[in-house]
């Protein structure tokens, strides 16, 4: 067991690793993998915990132990990108392991492996339905632990596949490769090899999405960096003025064509629409672990399908994560996106300290016109009057999306720009190059934050789609008006 994994470099900086291209052939992981896999073990039994820790260390993993689920959760929350996989016992005194599993799936979307000395079918089934990616029966042998890395890889692979399916892919020649290194150097400090993996995937051919464009256009790989540039450009222009030509100019990427941008923009809008089609956050999930502000949402029901609660709770994205996740929007068919449960949406994120973000949010709400740019779901409403909800719902008509703004200005305490933006995104098809837009202008910063929040939400959304059996999924059908706009019409051909 010892010495089977030859680890010459413990934690190699990702930048170094990518430049040395130490890839296993046909694999998408660096050579030293799975050594260094960051595992969080949660078990209230000290004997088991000690043994597991030793076993995992023998596997060359980086182990963090917890004997309390709450401690594990706060560790995870404080260090969103700090772990690759979680191992948790089912029976724990302070929290049911399945509950922990739910929270982790909701908030961090890490692969979770359940353990128990119970091998009863119902227990294992519970693991499955709650979204555990594996279930180990105790006593656990080291051989079983040696392979847990597969769940991390599989998850990433599934996520990547989604990205490939939704985005136009192939041919990275037109893209500036150097920028990718820059991006990865910033994330290298997090020690996440997944970045490297994604990059590798980007270089591979993906499937072209069958979109409405009938033109044979050069294929573009929408890398994280490229998408981030795109989003920045869109935000800069303001969603109502985000025409492909202008976006293209702002992005200033050699080789990128207006058609590329238009197609990408179309997908982006679809994604944003899908984001707003989020279903309501089921009651009882995660409540004790929400910060007070989040709890204030309480019974807020979904606003035109948009679950503010979810977005709030999930609102802390680092720029990197956002950039990362942002590139993964755009599921090809909008239909299923609508009914993604909140839990699914939230499941794919890495978050910063939520409390910190809430503080920022409050500030921004008080000063909605500040130009403070936030990547996260800034301005996410922490509270919404039912009346406003109703108003917003009523205003969900084509081209009337910016009516939301009116609602907001009625003094909703913390109605966020998110809501405002949501509406226009729903009608996204009509926005853009059409100069006959009837919608009033929104403040740029509002657009930005909302867009980003929606991006974030979409990430959650789409990632949620990859997960089957996330236990709490309660899917709500979209609002009628939304459904109508989702009919699949994609009138971008004219663009």
């Amino acid at each position: 067991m010892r010495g089977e994994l030859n680890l010459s470099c413990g934690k190699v900086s990702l930048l170094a690793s990518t430049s040395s291209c130490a890839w296993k052939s046909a694999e998408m992981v660096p050579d030293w993998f799975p050594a260094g896999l960051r595992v969080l073990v949660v078990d209230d039994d000290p004997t088991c915990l000690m043994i597991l820790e030793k076993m995992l260390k023998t596997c060359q993993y980086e182990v963090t132990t917890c004997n309390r689920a709450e401690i594990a959760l706060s560790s995870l929350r404080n260090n969103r990108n700090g772990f690759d996989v979680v191992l948790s016992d089912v029976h724990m005194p302070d929290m049911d392991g399945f509950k922990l599993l739910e929270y982790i799936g909701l908030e961090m979307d890490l692969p979770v492996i359940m353990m128990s000395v119970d091998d009863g079918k119902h227990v294992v089934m519970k693991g499955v339905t709650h979204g555990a990616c594996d279930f180990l029966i105790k006593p656990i042998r080291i051989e079983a632990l040696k392979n847990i890395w597969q769940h991390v890889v599989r998850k990433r692979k599934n996520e990547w596949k989604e990205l490939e399916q939704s985005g136009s892919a192939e041919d990275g020649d037109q893209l500036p490769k150097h920028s990718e290194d820059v991006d990865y150097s910033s994330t290298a400090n997090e020690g996440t090899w997944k970045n490297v993996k994604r990059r590798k995937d980007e270089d591979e051919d993906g499937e072209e999405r069958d979109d409405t464009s009938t033109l044979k256009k050069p294929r573009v790989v929408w890398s994280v960096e490229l998408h981030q540039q795109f989003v920045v450009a869109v935000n800069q222009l303001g969603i109502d003025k985000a025409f492909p030509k202008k976006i293209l100019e702002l992005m200033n990427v050699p080789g990128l064509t207006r058609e590329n941008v238009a197609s990408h923009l179309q997908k982006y809008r679809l994604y944003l629409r899908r984001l707003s089609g989020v279903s309501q956050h089921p009651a009882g999930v995660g409540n004790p672990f929400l910060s007070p502000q989040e709890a204030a949402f309480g019974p807020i029901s979904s606003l035109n399908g948009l679950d503010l609660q979810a977005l709030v709770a999930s609102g802390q994205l680092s720029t990197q994560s956002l950039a990362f996740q942002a590139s993964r929007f755009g599921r090809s068919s909008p239909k299923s996106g609508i009914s993604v449960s909140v839990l699914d949406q939230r499941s794919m994120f890495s978050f910063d300290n939520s409390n910190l973000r809430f503080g920022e949010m409050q500030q921004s709400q008080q000063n909605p016109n500040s130009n403070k740019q936030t990547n996260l779901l800034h301005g996410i409403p922490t509270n919404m009057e039912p009346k406003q909800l109703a108003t917003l719902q009523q205003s969900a008509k084509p081209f009337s999306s910016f009516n939301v703004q009116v609602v907001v200005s009625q003094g909703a305490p913390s109605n966020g720009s998110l809501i405002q933006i949501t509406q226009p995104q729903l009608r996204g098809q009509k926005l853009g190059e059409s100069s006959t837009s009837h919608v009033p202008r929104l403040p740029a910063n509002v657009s930005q934050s909302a867009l980003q929040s929606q991006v974030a939400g979409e990430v959650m959304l789409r990632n949620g789609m990859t997960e089957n059996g996330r236990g709490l999924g309660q899917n709500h059908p979209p609002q009628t008006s939304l459904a109508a706009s989702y009919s699949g019409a994609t009138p971008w051909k004219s663009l």
Partner: protein
Amino acid sequence: MDVVQLQSRLSEYLKSLFNDGTLDGQFLQLQQLQDESNPDFVVEVVTLFFSDSEKLLDDLSSSLEQPNVDFRKVDAYVHQLKGSSSSIGAQRVKNACIAFRGLCEEQSIPACLRCLQLVKQEYLYAKNKLETLFKLEKQVVAAGGSIPSLDAGS
């Protein structure tokens, strides 16, 4: 006794523990985890098991003595003991726990008390055997020898 004899005695003793079911293959897993960086790993883990188990057994006793026995709590304790005993390979203790959990479902206090006694007996037996094993190991090391490792298959 010389080193070789001590080692032989140790091996035989360990084998006997497998033969009578006191220990199972999981114990070998523990031994294989022990290395130069952690030369006392097995002793440490088993010692932890002892202190943890004794507390559990005390909790079990007191919970069964309550006027209104909370069988879910009893079951939880037994479940815990089952988990920890299985993790170090204390097979007979584990089996006694399995039987105990079945009785918890029936919610019969007298039966549970009897079973608790059985679990305690098995625990003390295993503890005794393991402490002897560790003593023998110490003797081998003191005589300058190394602890022979058993194959998983033996």
